[in-house]
């Protein structure tokens, strides 16, 4: 790739100044004028109930109330991968907090007051609050129709790679079958089985969801949303509201900066309410703003999982067979969450070479809030069990746990569980570097007998989970001074996307990144992007930006050739100018012609405004495979891999865990901006620590979330930061990535839970199988241990 001038450099964030001055605008910072109306939502107090009657009279009569809306006006379903979610509940509610009706009023206060006056009569049904209850007692998981959370499941439209089971609460059953399990277990020297569980978690972006909708008098519907997915939102709004005569052309989604996403603002959740409500009050914008409690309950939650793992190994540590049965508590609606289940099912071997594999990844409806995407997309959940279990196996075989991983680590060209081949990767290099940095094998001992020190290790991997035709686009337009606006539709959700897209264009066009500004999406103006999810945007949109820049470069050279009769092959770009390999003195600044063209002696001009165009879609990807075996497709474009380790100190009396050191090595392919990669590592590690040490969703026996605020659901503060974090970047280029890059955003959170679990085991000799591993639980486990 030669010498890179801008790519690979830790340039300052493009959005840095806006964000440190408070100039950056988020949806709730925008002004919508005097006509703005406010909506309050009437929510179900029951996890499972029939709606018998809704009386809106009292609410309607309150002064300042403009409109009361119930599900009668919007009997429509929507969803990303499966159409199972309702704009408003229809005849039935399926989780505590589900939207039943809405009040639109002149002020938020009046709206909330009126919402309390809406009378809803329910027939309360017994809620199904666990996977166990939802699956019933029969081997084929069939349940009575009145125990089905979605009795109409078989009628729901869904993507072709989902396999719902009729007459059950199973929305999707992903199967992987590879090799011969029976023979493999027979040939194994040992078979180890265990069970692990991971509860639900909340994203806790600091910005709550907010959406403002406006249907103007010309019947244009505009939405301003805090979203990771402007184009996908437009598409889902158009699908859901097509009975009202709205089409893609009529719908416009504008997405300014987002105050944190982590998957929670992907797809469409509460935004559908703003879209629907706006159509009932033409001419006035309507704001739907979630409070923190609604943020916890009615967007998406990370799904819980129960894992049964069975592993056959040889005495030398070689894994011959893996069975992973994953039962996911996917909640009341799974239009997005079922694809988490699917992704986990495809990759539940972890980054290991295993010849015989059986995986069942089962998406189970429950009467808990809807599950959905959360940074890690299922991988954090199944890896907790797998990486914990591998340590237990290594211990029983008397093999060092890292050596056990080295024996089985996947390599380039190895066959994946669905038959495709593993991409180039630096997994062994990551293991080696992390081992060295953490001084693996060296036992630390505290001088305080009450403090125990332990070390933990974990590998990780993740592939983008996306439809095979998910694509990215870029328009690159020059300005008079040869500065550039990049029109793209990925979201700058904090990861540094704008900055690296700027660096890519800068490199191709040899223009400093400071002269490039990305434009936050507006679906009327910025070209198509699927969504900012799956850690795929650096790779996918990066390719689109690179192609757009190359397109612009080709146009620039062509016009110089045409106007000045230079050979294209002699020309190149450097220092914001066109230069020639054969004429030293030739130096034509871009600003002289990228808008107004090159003037000729006769007074005419050649060229005109330069506008580059680039697109990327992975044409090699396919989600089609045998439903009984999972074999045959290429559902994942590539995996990003790495290794991580930690040192922890545990207070034996209180169970409190402190983290003196964490190390994480990730193969970024090419780190386009190393400082931003490090930012993902420090952020992801703490978010991972949050899930393993602190956070825990608690529901009461009726399915109501008890800790829907930051007082009771404690996310880490500055006092919980590890003393030392060592980020390690490894670069084995991704051949189809921009300058070799692949995504790393979600990955940094994935190994944290198992490596902490493994460190606790190392320190205290106790294996904890059920997350979270809070101080209280560690302490109780200590007290109740048998030895």
């Amino acid at each position, binding site marked *: 790739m030669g010498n890179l001038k801008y790519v690979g450099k*830790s340039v*300052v*964030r493009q*959005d*840095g*100044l*806006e*964000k*440190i*001055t*408070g100039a*950056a*605008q*988020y949806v*709730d*910072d925008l*002004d919508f004028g005097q006509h703005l109306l406010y909506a309050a939502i009437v929510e179900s107090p029951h996890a499972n109930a029939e709606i018998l009657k809704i009386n809106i009279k009292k609410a309607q009569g309150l002064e300042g109330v403009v409109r009361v809306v119930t599900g009668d006006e919007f009997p429509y379903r929507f969803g990303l991968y499966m159409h199972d979610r309702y704009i408003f509940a229809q005849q039935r509610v399926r989780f505590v907090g589900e939207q039943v009706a809405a009040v639109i009023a002149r002020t938020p206060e009046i709206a909330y007051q009126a919402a309390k006056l809406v009378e809803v009569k329910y027939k309360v049904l017994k809620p199904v609050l666990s996977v166990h209850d939802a699956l019933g007692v029969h081997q084929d998981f069939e349940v009575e129709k009145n125990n089905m959370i979605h009795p109409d499941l078989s009628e729901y439209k869904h993507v072709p790679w989902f396999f719902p089971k009729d007459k059950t609460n199973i929305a999707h059953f992903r199967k992987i079958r590879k090799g011969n399990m029976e023979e493999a277990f027979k040939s194994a020297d040992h078979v180890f089985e265990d069970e692990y569980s991971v509860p639900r978690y909340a*994203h*806790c*972006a*600091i*910005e*709550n969801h907010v959406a403002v909708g406006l249907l103007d008098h010309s019947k244009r519907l505009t939405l301003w949303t805090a979203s990771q997915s402007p184009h996908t939102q437009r598409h889902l709004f158009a699908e859901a509201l097509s009975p009202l005569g709205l089409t893609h052309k009529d719908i416009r989604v504008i997405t300014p*900066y*987002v*105050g*944190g*996403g*982590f998957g929670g603002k992907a797809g469409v959740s509460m935004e559908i309410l703003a879209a629907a409500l706006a159509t009932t009050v033409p001419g006035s914008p309507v704001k739907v703003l979630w*409070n*923190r409690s609604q943020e916890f309950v009615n967007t998406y939650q990370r799904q819980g999982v129960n894992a049964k793992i069975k592993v056959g190994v040889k005495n030398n540590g070689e894994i011959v067979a893996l069975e992973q049965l994953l039962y996911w508590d996917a909640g009341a609606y799974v239009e997005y969450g079922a694809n988490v289940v699917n992704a986990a099912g495809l990759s539940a071997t972890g980054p290991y070479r295993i010849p015989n594999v059986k995986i069942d990844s089962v998406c189970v409806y429950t009467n808990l809030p809807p599950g959905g995407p959360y940074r890690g997309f299922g991988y954090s959940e199944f890896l907790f069990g797998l990486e914990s279990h591998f340590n237990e196996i290594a211990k029983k075989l008397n093999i060092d746990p890292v050596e056990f991983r080295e024996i089985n680590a996947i390599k380039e060209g190895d066959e994946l569980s669905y038959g495709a081949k593993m991409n180039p990767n630096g997994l062994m290099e990551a293991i080696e570097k992390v081992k060295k940095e953490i001084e693996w094998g060296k036992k630390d001992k505290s001088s305080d007998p009450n403090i125990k020190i332990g070390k933990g290790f974990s590998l990780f991997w993740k592939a983008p989970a996306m439809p095979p035709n998910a694509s990215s686009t870029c328009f690159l337009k020059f300005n008079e001074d040869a500065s550039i606006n990049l029109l793209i539709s990925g979201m700058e*959700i*904090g*990861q*540094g996307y704008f900055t690296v897209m700027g660096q890519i264009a800068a490199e191709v066009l040899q223009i400093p990144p400071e002269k490039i500004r990305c434009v936050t999406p507006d679906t009327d103006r910025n070209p198509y992007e699927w969504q900012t999810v799956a850690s795929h945007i650096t790779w996918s949109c990066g390719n689109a930006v690179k192609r757009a820049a190359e397109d612009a470069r080709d146009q620039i050279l062509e016009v110089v050739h045409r106007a000045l009769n230079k050979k294209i092959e002699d020309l190149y770009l450097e220092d914001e100018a066109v230069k020639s390999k054969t004429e030293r003195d030739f130096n034509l600044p871009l600003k002289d012609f990228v808008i107004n063209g090159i003037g000729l002696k006769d007074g005419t001009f050649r060229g005109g405004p330069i506008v580059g165009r680039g697109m990327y879609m992975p044409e090699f990807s396919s989600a089609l495979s045998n439903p009984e075996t999972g074999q045959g497709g290429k559902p994942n474009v590539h995996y990003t891999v790495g290794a991580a380790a930690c040192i922890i100190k545990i207070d034996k009396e209180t169970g409190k865990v402190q983290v003196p050191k964490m190390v994480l090595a990730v193969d970024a392919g090419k780190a386009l901006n190393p*400082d*931003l990669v490090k*930012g993902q590592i*420090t*952020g*992801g*590690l*703490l*978010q991972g620590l949050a899930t393993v040490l602190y956070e825990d969703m608690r529901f009461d026996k009726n399915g109501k979330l008890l800790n829907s*605020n*930051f*007082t009771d659901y404690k*996310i*880490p*503060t*500055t*006092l919980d*930061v590890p003393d030392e*974090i060592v980020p390690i970047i490894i670069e084995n280029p991704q051949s189809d990535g921009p300058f070799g890059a692949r995504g790393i955003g979600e990955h940094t959170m994935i190994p944290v839970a198992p490596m902490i679990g493994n460190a606790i085991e190392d320190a205290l000799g106790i294996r904890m199988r059920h997350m979270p591993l809070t101080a209280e639980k560690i302490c109780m486990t200590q007290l109740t241990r048998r030895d």
Partner: protein
Amino acid sequence: MNQEIKVMVNGEKRKIEVKPTDILLDVLRNKLGLKSPKCGCGRGDCGTCTVLINGKSVKSCLVLGIEVDGQEVTTLEGLMDNGLLRVQEKMLEGNSFQCGFCAPGFIVMSHELLEENPGPTKEEIKEAMAGNLCRCTGYTPILEAIEKTCGCKE
């Protein structure tokens, strides 16, 4: 019901009509157009609405508008009269924030800390910032920028 209050907002005398129930955060955002303080929780947990009253930090979601009658209120917008603060410069150089939603609260809070204690220790910085939540960064780059601003001691 409305009451007029007189407040020095970012160095300028302002007369504002408020209801007794109006929250200071809403008054600042909706009546004065000062959008740097933001609402993340509405109950004093997250610190993204932090502003200064007479130089002392408060969570503006926990203060009523009428309480600031006759007081001085300063938001991030009012701290930049002489250009960027040093701590802002360090945060810019260090790519300290990601989504940026919590940034105004952190900057106001670190400004108060450094005004009161120009040479805090690392532990003192962590303690002072513990009431401001950030979900993106893992805090490390924010803390490092504050440490660099004051040439911090261990």
